[in-house]
C-alpha cells in the first residue's frame, strides 16, 4: 500500500477510530495487523519475508541475551546479522554482481555476451534490514535488552508508517514507546495532521511537479550544460520534497497513535559544510552508518590516514545502500572525498563565512545529486558542451517553474532555521499556534487538490 492512496487513508482512519478505545496489548496487536495488511496489500508474500526477518531476529536477540558462552553469543549474533545481509544481498545486489562479473568475463573473451538478471526487490527491505541489525547489535553490545513479547518486537520491525522508507528507528527509541501505555493528546493529534498534510503537499505538489522537468532533462540524448544544471537543481528539490514528504507523513501517522518517530531532516540545504549536511540529511541513516560501520571500523580514533579510509569505506557503503549501480558507488565516493577535504580545510584554518559556506555546500550537494540521478553521468557531462542548445527564454521558463513549486519548501526551511537559531530549540514558532496551523492545513489541502501533478509516481526512496 502506498501513502498517496485512498486505501491508506481509509486504513489509517479505520485503525485510528478503534485504536484509542483499546488496552495497550490489543492496541499493539491492531497496529501489527494493520502493518501486515499495509505491507502485503499489493504483494502478499512479502508478509512472509517480513515475518521470517522478525522471527530470526527475535529468537537471535533472546539467545544472545540468555547465552552465557561468549562464543555462542557471537555465533547467534553472526547468524542474525549475516542472514539479514544475505537476504538483502540476494534481492538487491546479486543481479548487479552477476552483471558485472559476466561483463568482466565477456571482456576477457570467456563469454559472448553479458547476463542481466531482473530480481524483484521487496519494497522497504533495506530499511527494515538495517533496523533489525541495529536491534540485534544493540542487544549484543548490551545497549538494550532483548524483548520477550513477540508482538512488540514484530511491531518494532514492521510498524507501518515507517516500514517502507524509514526513519530507521532504534530499539531504545521506538520499542520503548511501543511497550508503554499510550495516552491520547490533542497536541499530538494536531501535529500529526499538520505533518501528514504538509508531507502530502511536498510529495504531490512539489516533488511530482518538479520531477516532470528533471526526469525529462535526464532522458535527453544530448542535453546542454545549462539544462544539466537545471536538472540537478530540480532533482535536488524533487528528492528532498519526496523523501522528507514521506518522512513527514510517516511521522504524522505515527503521532496519531501517540508514537514519536525520529526526524530525518533538519533543513539540509542550509548546511554550511558537507559534514553538516550529513548531520541534517537522512539523519537516521547517517547515525546508523556512524554507529554500526564507522565507529566499529575505528572511527577517528587512529591516524588521519586510517580515519580518511574509514570515511571513504562508510560513504561508499552508504552509496551502495541506495542502490546496486555504479552511479551510487561514485556518489558515495564523491561525498567521502568532499568530507575528507572539508575536514582537512577545517583543521587548517578558522576562516569561515556562513553564507559562503551555505552556497558552496549547496553546489557540492547538487553536483552529488547529478551523479546520483544520472545513470551515465560521465556520458551526459561529455556530451553537455556540444548538445542541444537552450536559449535564455527556455531556461528562465523552466527555472521559474522549479522555483515557484519549491518556494514553500525554502521559505518554510528558512523560517525554521531562523526560529531554531533564535530560540535554540526545534520549534515552529508561530506555526505552533493551533489556529494558525489549522488555517495552513486548510490552504495546504486546497493546494494539493488544485496543484497536484497528474503524473504521480512512487516515492523515490521506495526503491532503495
Amino acid at each position, binding site marked *: 500500500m502506498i501513502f498517496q492512496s485512498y486505501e491508506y487513508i481509509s486504513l489509517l482512519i479505520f485503525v485510528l477510530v478503534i485504536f484509542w478505545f483499546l488496552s495497550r496489548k490489543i492496541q499493539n496487536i491492531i497496529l501489527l495487523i494493520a502493518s501486515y495488511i499495509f505491507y502485503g496489500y499489493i504483494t502478499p508474500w512479502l508478509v512472509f519475508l517480513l515475518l521470517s526477518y522478525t522471527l530470526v531476529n527475535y529468537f537471535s536477540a533472546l539467545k544472545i541475551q540468555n547465552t552465557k558462552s561468549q562464543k555462542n553469543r557471537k555465533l547467534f549474533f553472526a547468524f542474525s546479522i549475516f542472514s539479514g545481509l544475505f537476504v538483502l544481498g540476494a534481492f538487491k545486489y546479486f543481479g548487479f554482481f552477476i552483471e558485472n562479473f559476466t561483463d568482466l568475463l565477456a571482456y576477457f573473451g570467456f563469454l559472448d555476451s553479458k547476463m542481466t538478471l531482473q530480481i524483484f526487490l521487496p519494497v522497504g527491505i533495506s530499511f527494515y534490514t538495517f533496523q533489525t541489525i541495529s536491534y540485534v547489535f544493540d542487544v549484543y553490545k548490551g545497549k538494550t535488552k532483548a524483548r520477550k513479547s513477540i508482538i512488540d518486537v514484530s511491531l518494532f520491525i514492521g510498524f507501518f508508517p515507517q516500514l517502507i522508507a524509514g526513519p530507521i528507528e532504534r530499539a531504545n527509541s521506538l520499542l520503548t514507546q511501543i511497550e508503554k501505555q499510550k495516552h491520547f493528546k490533542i497536541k499530538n493529534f494536531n501535529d500529526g495532521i499538520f505533518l501528514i498534510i504538509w508531507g502530502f503537499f511536498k510529495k504531490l505538489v512539489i516533488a511530482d511537479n518538479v520531477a516532470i522537468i528533471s526526469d525529462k532533462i535526464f*532522458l*535527453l*540524448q544530448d542535453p546542454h550544460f545549462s539544462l544539466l544544471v537545471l536538472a540537478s537543481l530540480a532533482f535536488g528539490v524533487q528528492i528532498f520534497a519526496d523523501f522528507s514528504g514521506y518522512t513527514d507523513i510517516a511521522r504524522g501517522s505515527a503521532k496519531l497513535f501517540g508514537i514519536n518517530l525520529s526526524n530525518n531532516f533538519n533543513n539540509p540545504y542550509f548546511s554550511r559544510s558537507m559534514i553538516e549536511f550529513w548531520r541534517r540529511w537522512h539523519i537516521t541513516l547517517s547515525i546508523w552508518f556512524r554507529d554500526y560501520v564507522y565507529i566499529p571500523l575505528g572511527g577517528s580514533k587512529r591516524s588521519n590516514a586510517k580515519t580518511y579510509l574509514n570515511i571513504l569505506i562508510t560513504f561508499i557503503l552508504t552509496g551502495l545502500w541506495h542502490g546496486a549501480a555504479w552511479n551510487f558507488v561514485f556518489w558515495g565516493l564523491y561525498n567521502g572525498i568532499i568530507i575528507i577535504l572539508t575536514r582537512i580545510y577545517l583543521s587548517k584554518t578558522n576562516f569561515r563565512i556562513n553564507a559562503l559556506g551555505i552556497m558552496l555546500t549547496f553546489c557540492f550537494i547538487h553536483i552529488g545529486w547529478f551523479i546520483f540521478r544520472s545513470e551515465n553521468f560521465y556520458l551526459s557531462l561529455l556530451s553537455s558542451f556540444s548538445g542541444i542548445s537552450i*536559449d535564455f527564454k527556455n531556461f528562465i*521558463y523552466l527555472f*521559474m517553474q522549479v522555483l515557484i513549486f519549491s518556494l514553500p519548501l525554502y521559505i518554510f526551511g528558512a523560517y525554521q532555521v531562523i526560529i531554531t537559531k533564535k530560540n535554540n530549540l526545534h520549534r515552529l514558532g508561530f506555526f505552533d499556534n493551533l489556529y494558525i496551523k489549522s488555517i495552513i492545513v486548510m490552504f495546504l489541502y486546497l493546494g494539493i487538490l488544485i496543484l497536484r501533478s497528474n503524473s504521480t509516481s512512487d516515492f523515490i526512496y521506495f526503491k532503495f
Partner: protein
Amino acid sequence: MLFFQSEKNNFNQKLYNEISSSAPDYVFIGNSMLETRIDEIYLEKLLGDNKDVLLLTMPGGMSSSWYLYLKNFVAEAGINPDNVYIFFRDYELTKPLYRTQGEYSQKLDLLSRTEEVKFDMIINSNSGIGDKLSRLFDEIYPIQAKNNKARDLINRLSVSPYIPKIIPFTFLRVTLGLDDSNYIPVLREYKNIQNSTNDLFSRKNFRSTEIFDFSDIPSEFKKTSSFLNLMVDISDEHDIELTFVRVQKRPNSINSKISDVILNDYIDKLNKFLISKEVNFIDLEGKGFSLDYYLDGDHINPEYIKDFTEYFYRENMIYFGGEN
C-alpha cells in the same frame, strides 16, 4: 473563479438539437488522435455528392466519452449515418475509468443525460475503494477540475521575468475568468516560448531508455466490464454500422519487447471479439506515415492532416463505406 466555484454541467442540449436536425453520412468519434488526423471539410470534399461528415471529439476523452457520444448524440438523436468510426489507441477501449474524474468529469457531464444507468454500472464495477472515495469527494466538490487553471497560472508566471506584461493579465484572467482576447500579441509570445520548450522535449531528443510502467498494462481483456461492450450493444440495437479504428503509434515510439507482445496479444483478442460481434475493425498500426508526419507523441502534425484524411479515405472509407 479559481477556487470557490462548485459546478455540475448540464447535458449539451444545443449540440444534441443541432445533430438531430442534421443528417451526417459519416460520424467520427474520438479525441486528439482523431482531431489531428481527420479534416471533416476536406473529407466532405473528397467524398463528394454532398456527403456530410460529423466529428464528435472531446480532447483527452477516452472510452467513457465515446460511449456517451455514441449513445446520446448518435443513437438517440436518430441520425442513422452510413458508418460511425471510433478512433482509439492501445488499451483505451477497455480502460473504463481512465480520465473520468476532475476536469474530465465536468466534460462528461455535458454528454450525459440525468440518468446514465449503464455508464454508472461500468464505472462502479471497475472502481476499487480508492476510486469510489475519490469519486465521492469529486462529486461533493469538484475542485480537481481547477487543476488546469492553476497550472495555467503557474505557466504564465514562469514566463513573467521575460514577459512582465503577462502578470496583470494572468491574475485577472485566471482568477476572475476574464477573456484572453484583449492581449493576443502578449499571449502569442508566451505560446512561442511554450512551443520552443515543447520542441526541446520532443521525442526526437530522447535517448532510448524510456520509463515504462508495467502496472499500466491490463492483465486481461476485459470486454464485458468496459464501455466497449456497451458500444457494441448500441450498434446492434440501433443497427449502426460501427468501425473501431486503431491509430498508429509514433514510428519511433520505444516500448519494451514484452509490452509489444502483450499489446499485440490484446489487439488480436480485440479483433476476434469484434469479428464475433460483426463489428468492423481497422488496424492502422505501422501503416502509411513516417516520423516526419508527426508532431508530438502520436499526434499528426496539423500541416499533414489533409494527407492523413486522404489516406484514410482512400484506404479505408471506399471499402467500408461501400458506395464510393
